């Protein structure tokens, strides 16, 4: 089972060009919420049809009753098929909760896949409330319910629109590391992307951490960076561990800023 950093299942696909991308598989709870939204949508549509057929019943109660029975069945079975086909793997509930049904190999979703995954739903619902489908999905490495397995589809989470928060950090103070460009260069060479990300995350989330934990966290991160590149003692003595980490992050992420506009996180 492939899990991402947050412990969620991911679907990994490699393109013929050699590019690998990971998609986060939708969680059970989110899917359940989407199912409830879809249930409400079906009920709303049914009650609208019920109202319309009541008017029709003035002319022919039998025909109105037949029409309601048939339309209700068509909507309850066809809703998922129609919406997922029309909106490329999304029903109302999935749209709202930013989920999408995709082909498990990343290819275009076909109508037959949508039909199969929706028509096999009754077996996933057994004995009630998606218990069988839920249990199967929990153990399946791609989070597939039985209908998804037969259709070779996976429900994934769609990431939010790109919002970068490095801009939110103020660029006000002087970064003393800028006086040592050769050490900054060495820092950029030696620090791995994942280490830089940890440091950036620690800065962005500093206010969520208690004072003691924060001091300890930045001490450890700073110690790690110090072990990679050794700045002069007077530079290191003048600043706190947190400021040291901020300077490291600023040096790494803002390498093109000129010395005339020194920055610091």
């Amino acid at each position: 089972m492939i899990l991402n950093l947050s412990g969620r299942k991911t679907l990994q696909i490699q393109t013929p060009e050699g590019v690998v991308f990971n998609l986060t598989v939708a969680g059970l709870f989110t899917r359940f919420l989407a199912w409830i939204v879809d249930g409400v949508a079906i009920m709303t549509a049914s009650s609208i049809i019920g109202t319309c057929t009541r008017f029709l019943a003035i002319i022919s109660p039998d025909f109105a009753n037949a029409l309601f029975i048939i339309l209700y069945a068509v909507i309850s079975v066809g809703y998922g098929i129609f919406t997922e086909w029309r909106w490329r793997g999304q029903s109302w509930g999935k749209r709202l909760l930013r989920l999408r049904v995709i082909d498990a190999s990343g290819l275009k979703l076909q109508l037959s896949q949508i039909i199969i995954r929706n028509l096999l739903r009754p077996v996933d619902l057994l004995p009630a409330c998606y218990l069988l489908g839920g249990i199967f999905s929990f153990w399946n490495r791609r989070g597939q319910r039985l209908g998804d397995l037969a259709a070779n589809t996976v429900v994934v989470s769609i990431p939010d629109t790109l919002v970068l928060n490095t801009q939110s950090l103020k660029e006000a103070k002087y970064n003393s590391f800028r006086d040592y460009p050769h050490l900054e260069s060495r820092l950029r060479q030696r620090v791995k992307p994942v280490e830089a990300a940890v440091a950036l995350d620690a800065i962005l989330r500093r206010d969520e951490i208690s004072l003691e934990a924060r001091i300890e966290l930045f001490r450890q991160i700073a110690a790690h960076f110090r072990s990679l590149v050794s700045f002069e003692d007077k530079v290191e003595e003048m600043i706190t561990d947190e400021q040291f980490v901020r300077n490291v992050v600023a040096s790494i992420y803002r390498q093109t800023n000129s010395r005339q506009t020194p920055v610091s996180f």
Partner: protein
Amino acid sequence: MILDLQQFISSERPRWDEFETLLKQIEEDPDLNLSLEQARRFHYLYDRAASDLLRVSTFASSPEILHYLESLVARAYGEIHETREPRRRFIFWHWFSQQIPQTFRRHLTAFWCSVALTLLGVIFGAGILYVDPTAKETLLPFSHLQGKPSERVAEEEQNKGHQLEGKKAGFAGFLMTHNIRVALFTLALGMTYGIGTVVMLFYNGVILGAVSFDYIQDGQTRFLIGWLLPHGSIEIPSVIIAGQAGFVLAGALIGSRKRMTLLDRLASVRNDLVTLIGGFCLLLVWAGIIEAFFSQYHEPVLPYGVKIGFGLLELVLLCGYLSFSGRKNRPQNTSP
């Protein structure tokens, strides 16, 4: 080396936005045909985003950009790399006259299994009632089947079909939707390695066998055939076809074709399953109409001979349709 994210984003973002806009257009309109120029641009933007993804995953560690680019590339990947033959325009007559019977014949073994299980159920149901007539209450939990058959026949013949006056359309709607649900459930239970499908087919057979035995034993054979045959000649084969589809699904799961992976096996039967589903749903709509508007009329309104003749004609037509329709134009490369 670490990527200068800010500069990278500011230089690439206009192309990502353009790519996303184009993708959205394609996603929102499944029938959209891109011009050659647009297709080239789309491919260029895809290559560019894929290359950016590679750079970000190698030289930077920004989860937001990584997820965003992965999502963009994933969405476009399906559009660009899809090599499966696009489904041809749906032509109802071609589908009905060729695809359904051809698909049915491709999976004849599954069909005969389905028939055998139903027959086994029929024999079991009749046998139980023969051995223990008191089992009727347990085997037939329907109030209209609990009484003595001859009394019901007398009542039905006296009613002259008036009992459903003003309710026939609603009754037809109920029968159609109920039978389709049961058939779909029988198919879906194929995912239990066919065990659920076996149970459903056997259970249907048991009820059919018990009812038939009850009426035959009471000397109501003509009524029984006249009552069941007009709609049963279509309805019962439809449920058996649903069972056939369930066994096709179970066969793909169990893996009789050892050299194929599970996913390949399931993919190889998927279109056939959809065709069979369409086939039995259509038949059940017809059966529902006949049961509500025709089967409920008995002598003296409608002679049993006419009803039996009509039922037999339907059965012969159905057998002919499933056996011979679409034979001349059968495609050469059938599914593996």
